[in-house]
């Protein structure tokens, strides 16, 4: 299989879209361009017809009640759904113009550029150091590994808490620390995008606010997509917000998720265009 680097888009071009560009490029370019994307699991439709553009160095939040397909959608953006037997993705998802599901695209290569943090912290049962070192090692970024690990842990606001015990097992950290370790682990391979699927939903309020502060820091260097069921959280961290909801088709089709509305966060929470969004953000519907 061909990698992204050798696909129609040339490598330099991809690189220029990366962290190297300055802050003024914020939001001006499109990172993901998704059209008419539908997902089904073993023939059962889960999500239909999503159209969205995700902008560079923005924090984009996906909100909506549980089961409306937020995780399903975010996992399409780095081809994690390829790992689910029976998952079928239709439509197109472009990453800097390149079709992520194109025939020449290697999903492993996609995931090197588009990192992911999961709902439940999932550190490897190894030392803190080895957790962060895993990504760089498998991607053969071995030069300056120690510095890279320190930099990643600093970026994830974890360095001061763990610098004296990098050799300790990561499972001994608190939940919030584990999640920041997972963020450090993702940062260590220098992705352009970090996808976060409810990264704080398993954490206490203090750890949650630390993660939110961290997201504010990280958006200078990364494009962040975050799923959250917590509207206040979306309002606090996101530039753009997308509201997903479950619909039951009148023609008797099965219930599935759709993207209802997508706009600037301020507008979504104060003056949404869609009645369903308004009901949701004002707490009138589940």
């Amino acid at each position, binding site marked *: 299989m061909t990698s992204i680097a050798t696909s129609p888009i040339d490598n330099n071009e991809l690189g220029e879209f990366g962290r190297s560009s300055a802050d003024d490029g914020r939001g001006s370019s499109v990172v993901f361009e998704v059209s008419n994307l539908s997902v089904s699991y073993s023939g059962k439709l889960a999500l239909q017809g999503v159209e969205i553009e995700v902008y560079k160095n923005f924090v984009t939040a996906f909100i909506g009640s549980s089961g409306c397909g937020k995780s399903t959608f975010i996992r399409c953006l*780095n081809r*994690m759904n390829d*790992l689910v*037997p029976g998952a079928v993705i239709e439509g197109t998802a472009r990453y800097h113009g390149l079709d992520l599901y194109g025939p020449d695209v290697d999903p*492993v*290569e996609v*995931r*090197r*550029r588009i*990192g*992911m943090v*999961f709902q*439940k912290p*999932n*550190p*490897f*049962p*190894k030392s803190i150091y080895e957790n962060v070192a*895993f*990504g760089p*090692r*498998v*991607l053969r970024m071995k030069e300056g590994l120690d510095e890279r690990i320190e930099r990643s842990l600093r970026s994830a606001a974890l360095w001061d808490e763990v610098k004296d015990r990098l050799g300790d097992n990561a*499972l001994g950290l608190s939940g919030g620390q584990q999640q920041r370790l*997972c963020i450090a*682990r*993702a940062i260590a*391979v220098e992705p352009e995008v970090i996808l976060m699927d409810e990264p704080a939903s398993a954490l206490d309020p203090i750890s949650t606010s630390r993660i939110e502060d961290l997201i504010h820091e990280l958006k200078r260097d990364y494009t962040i997509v975050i799923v959250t069921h917590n509207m206040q959280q979306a309002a606090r961290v996101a530039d753009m917000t997308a509201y997903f909801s479950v619909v039951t088709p009148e023609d008797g089709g099965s219930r599935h998720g759709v993207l209802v509305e997508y706009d600037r966060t301020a507008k979504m929470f104060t003056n949404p265009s869609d009645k369903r969004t308004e009901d949701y953000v004002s707490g009138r519907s589940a």
Partner: protein
Amino acid sequence: MTVRRVRAWMFQALMILSLAISMGALVWLLVGTFVKGLPALDMKLFTNPPSSVPEEAGARPAILATLYIAVLVLLFSLPIGVATAIYLEEYARKERWYNRFLEVNIQNLAAVPAIVYGILGLAFIVRGIGVGRVLLAGGLILTLVVLPTVIISAREALRAVPDSIREGGYALGATRWQVISRQVLPASIPGIATGSILALSRALGETAPLLLIGALTYVAFDPTILGPFTALPVQIYTWVKLPDAGFQQLAAAAIIVLLAIVLGMNAVAIFLRSRFRQKW
């Protein structure tokens, strides 16, 4: 007393009785063996070859052969068993008929009596590919005996590694093989080791398949991998058959040695399990 309380009491009494019977039998066997065997348990047992004079006889070739066989079985069964388990757990698509067929067969093979493997080994290993009645053949046959158990326990150990670990690896751009070799397999090693050691310790007590492929009952020299051999259970079997009280004592002493080897291995397995048990 109500009927229900009488029932409960009787049930408890029955359980205690059955426990007492099994423990009693075990203790009686152990005490009998130790009383008889301890006088004969001396250095001579470890340094001398068997002899027709009980006072001279030892079990050195048999003890060495059993240790060699243990090493051979681990060398053969671990790579094959772990590779099979990795295929079945991590690669095989369950909807394919041949994968389900494989699974069912491995379950069934684990229940096949060891002597059947002996017959198979005699036909295919000793005669078929002409390995001959040598220690290597014994190692290969006991490998067949433990292999299904090793595969099953390795699969369980792999399955115990949560999918979130695999996803964490994939999300960093690791390939499937990198995820398996660097995360899943290392995390499951304690489980694999425990299961394999327990399987091996049971197999080392097997006598029938080794007798069947012609483990000799009298070997007076240190074993080699490609030479004729005996093994500790075979030696015990030989001595027990002899009428002389001296040989009965030797048999009991050899049983103590075999027990020590097996219990020692089980202790290692239990240690590994408790020391490295992963709390996810």
